[in-house]
């Protein structure tokens, strides 16, 4: 495409609106406007120059701020829809069938519809992720499309601007003053003390400050891109681990995905606030709400096995450290964190029974079943023994005569046992449950009598490794730097020029914060006796002046 040669001799890229060098409007449309549009300095952007190939069209689509804003709005609306009902990961069900049933049971027809439309898992849906991906692409392309031409034109800008550029600035004034040259000189000195970067070219002056704030948006977009990149990295193997484990008091288990670490629970602690400790301050709240939790804590010991150790191999462990895992205080080691997430109090640990004669209650000995590791046979005194034929940890009843267990957790243990006594060397069969015994093969002379039980608490722990965190943190940091740079500083420019006919022109532009630049100008103007100027966009002040207020 053709370059545009300005009257001043500068060769501008095609699509430029304001000459990069002197600022003259380069087409009729720009010339017709009362004020120039200073966004991107009127420079030529790729998206406005080329529109031929597919690449051009894709580029133009994503470089558009309009498209970007639409993407933001669509994501915003979609995200809000996902908060109407709880998402699947907050629903107490795991299988698809149970989840569907849950939405129907709790939320009725609307719940079913919500689930069927996939809104219950909206944030991991392909279309939501595609939208976020498109926004990411838009961030990259829109930034590239603007930052390069903006950089070039700010670098090329001349101190001496054409009158047609100056008179189209929002703040503008012109007039005859007594000693133009001296006024400009005074203004130059004053502006320098006000931390402006002042350049002179003959009878023209350009004072500029805070240009770096123009790069703020591009810096913060870079931060966002880095952040999204970090989030994407999580999908790669090795970067991200998210596991859970249930650990019982006294148990020592392999920590999933950790390559050789083992964790032992010494104790789980659950505390609530008591009125005694702080009656005066918390008394009312405890009265109103009831029980308020104070602490969930698992005291653990961490062990490391030899390289490549796996679950079940508890030999050769070396002790690493002891720790107290609390909510907000995870255990950290080797890029991993272990979090206190959940607990179950008083799970059955072991049960102690006695083999008895039903009538005389004569004892043949006691035995204790460790519920997480029941032995096949318990030998008692005088050759008596109890054989465990089958163990149902979470017994729920019989289905067609077969005992059922709904989970491996010892919530309701039941045993099918054979009792051997000197009197019955071939054994008697009994089905032992809590508080009840069945005799499936006819009446027995002996029974298993329940003696005592021991319980222990279970800690629900989450194991997390996230190697993308440093990238996310860096992205966040760069975003904050960029957004502060663009928001808390602003780019101010003041042009002062004596025209050939002796009149002095003063014009100013800032990308934000017009009140401050006007104050700056007032200070300079008072000292250097410059012509009067006004904000050409401020209708209220003009109206006030006309009314004579």
């Amino acid at each position, binding site marked *: 495409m053709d370059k545009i040669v300005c009257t001043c001799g500068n060769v501008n890229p095609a699509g430029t609106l304001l000459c990069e060098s002197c600022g003259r409007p380069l087409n009729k449309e720009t010339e017709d406007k009362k004020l120039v549009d200073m*966004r991107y300095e009127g420079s030529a952007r790729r998206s406005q120059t080329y529109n031929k190939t597919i690449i051009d069209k894709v580029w133009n689509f994503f470089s558009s*701020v*309009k498209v*970007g*804003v639409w993407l*933001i*709005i669509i*994501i*915003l609306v979609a*995200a*809000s829809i*996902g*908060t109407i009902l*709880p*998402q699947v*990961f*907050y629903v107490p069900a795991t299988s698809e069938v149970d989840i569907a049933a849950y939405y129907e*049971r*709790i*939320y*009725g027809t609307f719940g079913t519809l919500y689930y069927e439309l996939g809104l219950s898992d909206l*944030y991991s849906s392909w279309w939501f992720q595609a939208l976020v991906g498109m926004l990411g692409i838009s961030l990259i392309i829109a930034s590239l499309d603007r930052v390069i031409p903006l950089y070039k034109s700010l670098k090329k800008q001349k101190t001496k601007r054409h009158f047609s550029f100056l008179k189209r600035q929002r703040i503008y004034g012109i007039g005859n003053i007594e000693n133009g040259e001296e006024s400009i000189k005074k203004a130059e000195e004053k502006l320098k003390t006000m931390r402006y970067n002042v350049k002179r070219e003959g009878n023209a002056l350009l004072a500029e400050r805070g240009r770096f704030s123009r790069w703020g*948006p591009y810096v913060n977009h870079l931060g966002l891109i880095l952040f999204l990149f970090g989030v994407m990295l999580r999908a790669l193997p090795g970067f991200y681990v*998210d596991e859970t484990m249930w650990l019982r008091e006294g148990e020592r288990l392999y920590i999933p995905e950790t390559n050789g670490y083992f964790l032992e629970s010494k104790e789980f602690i659950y505390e609530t606030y008591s009125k005694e400790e*702080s009656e*005066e*301050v*918390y008394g*009312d*709240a*405890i009265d109103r*709400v009831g029980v*308020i*939790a*104070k*602490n*969930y804590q698992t005291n653990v010991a961490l062990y490391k096995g030899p390289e490549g150790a796996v679950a079940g191999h508890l030999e050769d462990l070396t002790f690493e450290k002891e720790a107290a895992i609390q*909510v*907000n*205080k995870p255990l950290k080691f080797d890029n991993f*964190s272990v*979090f206190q*997430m959940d607990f179950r109090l008083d799970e059955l640990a072991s049960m102690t029974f006695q083999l008895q004669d039903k009538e005389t209650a004569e004892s043949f000995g006691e035995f204790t079943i460790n519920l997480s590791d029941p032995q096949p046979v318990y030998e008692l005194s005088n050759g008596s023994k109890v054989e465990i034929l089958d163990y149902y940890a979470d017994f729920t009843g019989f289905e067609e005569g077969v005992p059922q267990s709904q989970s491996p957790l010892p919530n309701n243990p039941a045993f099918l046992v054979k009792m051997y006594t000197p009197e019955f060397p071939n054994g008697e069969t009994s089905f032992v449950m809590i508080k009840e015994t069945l005799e499936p093969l006819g009446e027995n002379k002996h029974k298993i009598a329940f003696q005592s039980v021991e319980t222990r608490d279970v800690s629900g722990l*989450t194991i997390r490794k996230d190697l993308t*965190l440093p990238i996310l943190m860096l992205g*966040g940091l760069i*975003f*904050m730097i960029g*957004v*502060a740079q663009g*928001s*808390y500083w602003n780019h101010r420019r003041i042009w002062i020029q004596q025209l050939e006919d002796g009149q002095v022109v003063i014009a100013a532009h800032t990308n*934000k*914060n017009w*009140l401050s630049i006007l104050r700056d100008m007032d200070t300079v103007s008072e000292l250097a006796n410059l012509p009067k100027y006004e*904000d050409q966009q*401020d209708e*209220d*002040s003009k109206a006030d002046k006309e009314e004579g*207020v």
Partner: protein
Amino acid sequence: MMVEVSSTLLFIAFVAYLVATFLFGGAVKGSSSKASKSFERWGKLAITVTIIGFVSNIGYFITRWIAAGHAPVSNLFEFTTAFGMLVVGAFILIYFIYRIPALGLFALPIAIIIIGYASMFPREITPLIPALKSYWLTVHVITAALGEAILAISAVAGLIYLLKNIDMTKKSKSRFWIEAVMYVVVLVLGFIAATTTFTLADYKVEFNYVNKEEQVLTMEYNVPPIFGMNESEAITENAMQPLMEMPPLVNAKKLSVVTWSVIFGTVLYILLRLIFRKRIASVLQPFTKKVNSQFMDEIGYRSVLIGFPVFTLGALIFAMIWAHEAWSRFWGWDPKEVWALITWLFYAAFLHLRLSKGWEGKKSAWLALIGFIIIMFNLIAVNLIIAGLHSYA
């Protein structure tokens, strides 16, 4: 002891804000330039009283902090009160940049309503549950609330801009919607009036009901039950029978409170209309007459510019760091998190529309108002309606 001092200081702050509102009204009224010296004096007095109130408000915050042993931002009353306080703080900051009294006339009543709204919730000091025991509670919540408070000032500026620039003599969409905003503000007053009335009357009735998990539970109503819970049965003798029973999904108690607020608010609104014989927006319009629209537009934009980075830091970045410590993941699509993201996206759209599409003036002012509505939605509705990890109150 400390708790009582703290309550007294909050009350002083509340009264000071009320007085300052009237003083700002005095500073704004009148249009002749001759009297401008006297108005300047009104303005000075008004900002002084505001600062006294703010100092007292901070006194409340510090004494309560000492009494509780943690930053007083851990339940709905404490957070909302802190938010109201920070709105005043943000106003003071912006006032010293622009010195526009009209801003105080509108910002202070909004802070007053926020604090009034806050005090309708249980006010006792609650001990921290394990998830909240972290210094990030202080850092995250205060930064997020400060960001939201600064953003709220942009809505105040937007409101003033619109009141000044909407033609109230001709029927238009703008005129309708600005009055709708006024009506919603009156509804909040209605909530405060209804809650206060029934609290003073010591109204209390109990019902048994069946929840969605088919358990029988008890619900205590503090307002007359317009709507009944699912299969509810009165426990209290001679209790008013609910006019209508709701399915188990709906919390009929909250629905009754909302309905009473609407009734009280609407009656209040009708009374105001009868007294003034004008739209509320038209009643307020003269107070904005002397305001410079260009400056209002700039204040609206500038407070978004100042508030947006603070909000990002507090409500997203600090939030993520804490979420990673407490809940093991930095982001979990909890409703409160999502709405913070929505707020952030909305203001990002606001900035892009302004910078690239030239949305200034009226459009920008409307957006600032919508932004404030989103913030209030996240504060009120997400806590009260949508259950999630953040519903502590």
